[in-house]
């Protein structure tokens, strides 16, 4: 597998505006390589630097040190091969649901009618048909997340960067979305970086799970290949013994780390 996205020895230090000499190093010396068609999940304690890494991969944040390579080229500016689903709300409040979903198509110059048609189809896929005319503030939290998902997926990007995409959804809707995502992914083997706090979700979706240490100066402390057979049904696969085995293994590693991080933060 040729690497599609490679962060190598990346460090990110945030400056403090009041005191420029004092910075906060969120991520240090982190290497993350995603191959063609690989589905990589990143898990780690809250505040460890997952979003920061994703921002770097998207080209929105220049790392303080290290290199980012996309499809063999060093990344400069926005990563145009990637779609990014943000952790925070990023819908354009002045566009209604369907206009938000088709925004990317519009930017690419797709004809209005075709775009709207595809937008409607996508709204249906994320269970929101009938809500096309609502503005973001008229939607529930989970609905906004699904609009963001459709907004990203409609562009069919080569690389998917997803930051806790399903955490605001109920378990059932979540599984529907997960299956939707897996189907899409398997159709043309996209490369995915998927951030989640749900280890079960991570395992059931991924080829690989990367575990980050607690911040500051977070870095990967584990890299687990998930050799569960494909295609998978996210609901069923959780019950297989091999799944439970992997889960327990990663869980232990993480638990230690989190407790360490928590203690560290409390000591500060």
């Amino acid at each position, binding site marked *: 597998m040729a690497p599609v996205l490679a962060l190598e020895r990346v460090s990110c230090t945030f400056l403090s505006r009041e005191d420029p000499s004092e910075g906060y190093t969120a991520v240090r010396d982190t290497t993350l390589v995603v191959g063609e068609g690989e589905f990589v999940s990143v898990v780690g304690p809250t505040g460890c630097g997952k979003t920061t890494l994703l921002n770097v991969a998207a080209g929105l944040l220049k790392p303080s040190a290290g290199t980012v390579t996309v499809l063999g080229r060093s990344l400069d500016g926005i990563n145009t091969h990637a779609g990014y689903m943000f952790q925070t709300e*990023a819908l*354009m409040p002045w566009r209604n649901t369907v206009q938000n979903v088709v925004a*990317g198509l519009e930017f690419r110059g797709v004809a209005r009618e075709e775009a709207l048609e595809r937008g409607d189809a996508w709204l249906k896929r994320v269970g929101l048909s009938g809500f096309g005319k609502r503005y973001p503030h008229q939607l529930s939290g989970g609905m906004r997340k699904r609009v963001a998902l459709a907004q990203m997926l409609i562009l069919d990007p080569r690389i998917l960067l997803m930051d806790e995409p399903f955490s605001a959804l109920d378990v059932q809707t979540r599984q529907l979305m997960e299956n939707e995502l897996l189907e899409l992914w398997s159709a043309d083997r996209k490369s995915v970086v998927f951030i989640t706090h749900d280890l079960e979700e991570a395992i059931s979706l991924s080829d690989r799970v990367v575990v980050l240490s607690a911040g500051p100066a977070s870095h990967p402390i584990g890299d687990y290949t998930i050799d569960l057979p494909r295609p998978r049904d996210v609901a069923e696969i959780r019950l297989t013994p091999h799944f439970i085995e992997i889960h327990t293994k990663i869980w232990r590693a993480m638990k230690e780390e989190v407790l360490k991080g928590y203690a560290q933060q409390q000591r500060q």
Partner: protein
Amino acid sequence: MPNSKGNRARNGRLRLRAFQVLLLALLLVIWHVLTSPTLLPPIYFAEANQAAFFFGEPVEVFARLWRWFASGEIYEHLWVTLVETLLAFLIGTVSGVVIGLWLALSPTASAVLDPYIKAVNAMPRVILAPIFFVWFGLGIASKVALGVTLVFFIVFFNVYQGVREVSPVVLANARMLGASPRQLLRHVYVPSAMSWVFASLHNSVGLAFVGAVVGEYLGSAKGVGYLIHQAEGFFDMNTVVAGILLLTAFALLLDWAVGLAERRLMVWQPRSIETERT
């Protein structure tokens, strides 16, 4: 019960209008009483008719307005002033938006030009009027120019700040969705700065009129400001006030149009949470 709900809303609006009309009537009465030499002993002024000397008398003012329209003599002047105002408003707004966007988005240009813009804004336009006359002649153009210098800065400063208040996440999202700089402008910066623009437009409407009238006042052969100037020469305050009232009415009209545009363009904004009471 949607009917009763509609009724309630309508009642509220009616009451509001009634209030406003009442207030207007009250103001007119106060004006009348204070300026009428015979109705009251002089309060503020030593002499009875001095108040009228400064504020005119409402009856006379309305008579004046009536005669202007009845004789048709006002149309020519009003037309000139309205054209000047509208042009100043449009040109000032458009240039304010364009230059505001430009400077907000290009930090170098903004850093270099910033002191110049502020310096120009601090220049007293009234004193510079002769230069406007040199550059733009004595016709409509010089008044438009004066109005533009008032409107431009109001819009400019707001657009400039409005663009810098764009949510970084929404911006990043649009960029990830593949928006070109032009598209970012059109689909992110402009809509996001829209409420800033409208805030400045409500202010500009008034100042566009001020620009036109003051320009005429300083030198012209036509327009409501010209009429006012003529009247001031002989202390004809009734005409002055009539002119000002006439223009104010048009300013409110233009503001209403701006408000209409605002309500249409800003439907997406979350207002306080809105449930229906049935």
